[in-house]
């Protein structure tokens, strides 16, 4: 038998020839695709700096771009939780966020609660909604789109009712420090977002839980037969998505000083745009937290620049929608060519 093994080995060494080179993507074709958005971002900044030299190149612009997107960072990470485990369409993320962001000021301003217990109630409510989503989708097997679309509409309705369609504001000013404490010219909430994203990225890349989540997203049956507790991980993802939405809502309310429940809707497309854009950044074809963070600030840079040019607010919709389709199309094509 020994001699046979050797022969088998010899042949295997002799046969692959060109196959190795064919299967391994050449580094040259990989590099531009995963960093393409960074290059476009830099080019965009350069163009804005040249065309709007009086408006764009200011620290104020920088602060606006990096200091204002925290709600989006938290919501995208919430969406990422369920997307990674293979549930592609949790449409309820912005509504859960809005739900928490409405409960908090309503309890404080309309009902005279202290701000901290109110924050805890808002936070707990968001987690409970996540758990309910998870129960319906994972345990009862109801379609994710149906559950989250319904939940989204329901929560938005409740939020509008609670707030009486008004902007609720007037939170104690000390509470603002939670989000707006200045560190190096940027509010502390920017750093919360960065820490969250890095933590999520670490979780996915280096921990057993993250590896299990990736496998559940790739194939439930493979995961189940490999000893991964598939349903527990899927349920946990929905709960965690609720948790992140809740956390984000508290920080957003602290930053704004109140909330208008009618604005929740407008987050839906940006959240999906940034998360899907991540499949074109850093890890082509794969949803990843760091790519999402870059995507958020990339999109905001583009929109702010256009608005400074004097274009109206419709610009953001055109930009979010258009970039999403273009970026993901390019990423898909590149991914297909290299694999």
């Amino acid at each position: 038998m020994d001699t046979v093994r050797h022969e088998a080995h010899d042949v295997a060494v002799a046969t692959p020839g060109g196959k190795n080179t064919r299967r391994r993507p050449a580094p040259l074709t990989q590099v531009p695709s995963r960093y393409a958005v960074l290059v476009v971002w830099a080019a965009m900044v350069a163009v804005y700096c040249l065309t709007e030299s009086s408006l764009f190149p200011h620290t104020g612009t920088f602060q606006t771009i990096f200091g204002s997107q925290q709600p989006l960072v938290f919501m995208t990470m919430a969406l990422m939780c369920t997307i990674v485990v293979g549930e592609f369409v949790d449409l309820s993320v912005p509504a859960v966020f809005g739900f928490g962001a409405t409960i908090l000021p309503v309890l404080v301003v309309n009902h005279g609660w202290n701000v901290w217990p109110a924050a805890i109630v808002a936070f707990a409510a968001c987690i409970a909604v996540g758990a309910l989503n998870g129960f319906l989708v994972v345990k009862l097997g109801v379609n994710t789109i149906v559950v989250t679309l319904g939940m989204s509409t329901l929560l938005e309705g409740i939020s509008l009712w609670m707030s009486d369609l008004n902007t609720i504001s007037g939170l104690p000013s000390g509470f603002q420090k939670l989000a707006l404490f200045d560190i190096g010219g940027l509010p502390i909430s920017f750093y919360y977002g960065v820490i969250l994203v890095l933590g999520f990225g670490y979780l996915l890349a280096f921990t057993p839980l993250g590896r299990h989540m990736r496998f559940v997203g790739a194939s439930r049956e493979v995961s189940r037969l490999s000893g991964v507790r598939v349903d527990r991980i899927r349920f946990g993802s929905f709960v965690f998505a609720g948790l992140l939405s809740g956390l984000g809502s508290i920080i957003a309310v602290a930053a704004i000083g109140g909330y208008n429940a009618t604005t929740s809707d407008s987050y839906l497309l940006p959240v999906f745009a940034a998360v899907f854009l991540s499949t074109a950044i850093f890890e082509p074809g794969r949803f990843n937290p760091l790519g999402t963070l870059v995507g958020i600030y990339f999109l905001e840079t583009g929109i702010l620049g256009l608005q400074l040019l004097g274009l109206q607010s419709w610009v953001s919709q055109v930009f979010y929608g258009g970039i999403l389709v273009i970026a993901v199309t390019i990423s898909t094509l590149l991914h297909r060519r290299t694999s």
Partner: protein
Amino acid sequence: MSVSHAEAAQTERRLEVAHVSKTFGPARVLRDIGLHIEPGELHGLVGQNGCGKSTLVKILTGIYTPDPGGAIAVDGRPLSLPVRPLDARAAGLSVVHQNLGLVDDRTVWENVRLGRFRAAGRFSRRIDGRAEREAVEAVFDRLGARVDVNERVGELSAEDRAAVAIARAMQDHQPGGGLIIFDESTRAMGKEARGRFFGLVRSVIDGGASVLMISHQLEEVVEVTDRVTVLRDGQVVETGIPTKEIDEAGLTRLMLGRHLVTHDRVDSHARDEPAAQVRNLAVRSVRGLDIDMKKGEIVGLTGLVGSGAVAVAEAIGGARQARAGELTVNGRKLSLKPRRDSTSEFIAAGIAFVAERRLEQGLAAELSVSQNLTLPRVRARGSRMRIGGGWQAEETAAMIKKLDIKPPDPDKAVGTMSGGNQQKVLLGKWLAGKPDLLVLHEPTQAVDVGARHDIIEAIREAARDGCGVLISSVDAADLAVLCDRVLVFRDGAVVAELTGELTQDDIIHATFASPDSRGPDFERTVR
């Protein structure tokens, strides 16, 4: 088509492929392929995984564009390249894929006519069900198969499903014309179904059509085809060898480019210590089954579809919920009955289950070799906060070496590897955990000769190390070579227990023992 076409079919070659090459990036996957198929010929195409067979089929069906300079002609008429699907259909060129490409919850006639539905009238867009059904019945008449066209395909037997796929492939053929390519279509069929399948293929050939059959089953190729072409590393080694003049050993030699690897039985490694006990197992049609396995013993489970052999293996591996039963491994008792979220208890008890459908149950195609290989152990071997890279790299490198996984790249996505190498990754995923009980379902399915050799060696080595091995398979050759003992199932009961010097003949005989299960005469089982 036209009269001249039919005339041409009498004199011209059915398929002529000349100087076809295919390059992906820097690599040439096919080099100057040339082969021809005569009218009414059953032509075999063999080669190891990754030799270029699938690429050639994809060129013939227009999925890939060949490099400039090649030519493909049907009945003497050159096809424009890349092949356009409608041209291929008009020329009578069709493919039956590995999984037959059927939609289970649709009827037979819908499956056959899929892609060809005609509307009832000039203004009506409604499908004319009656006309469609009649057309399909006419095809089955030509084929000489009796299948109820209104039946749902999911409810058909394996051979009827094959008949539906063949009917779909041949419906556009002109009388005396046409070419069907079977791309490992018999893979999922039992021996008996295979016999009937080749009966149908014969009737297609007798009608004047030609067949190109791609198969890993060399025995089948030698018995059934008229001539055979061998590919190796993207090149034609030899083409048009009459199968009367060559045997399996000769074909293997051509495929591998070296002397034949023979699999001799080796002495049993069974020791007198218990590895696993199954008690009172009830699953599917099986009830009250007991199995005792010794350390180092290799036990085979076999039987026809529905006999219960597969369900037993799946229940013991933790993949299927049993109605009752208890499994003891290493002194740990596991009930086989409860519904489980995952197989983690089985894995913790030292049981490994190598599933049959490797890309649905075994491996995540988009993730890397290393990630797939280490998955069952990331929790046990890593800390909560960090999986740790060292042991993963070590484990992956060890399995790549042990199983000779090609290419030896731990970061390669599993889905881009050849079937044989995927199977090796799947086996390595479980062997790396040093199981006490290894349950395998069709471990060498659709892998080439070289990979099969490596897999058989690895299974033997596991047994040598004291692991109890349970193999569920319909491949008598594998069972004969590997097993110390084979349990043959029929209708949920063990009808034979074969021990000692096993031969394929004995296993096949025991499996097909009932008198009415003999296939057509060219299914001569094994010499």
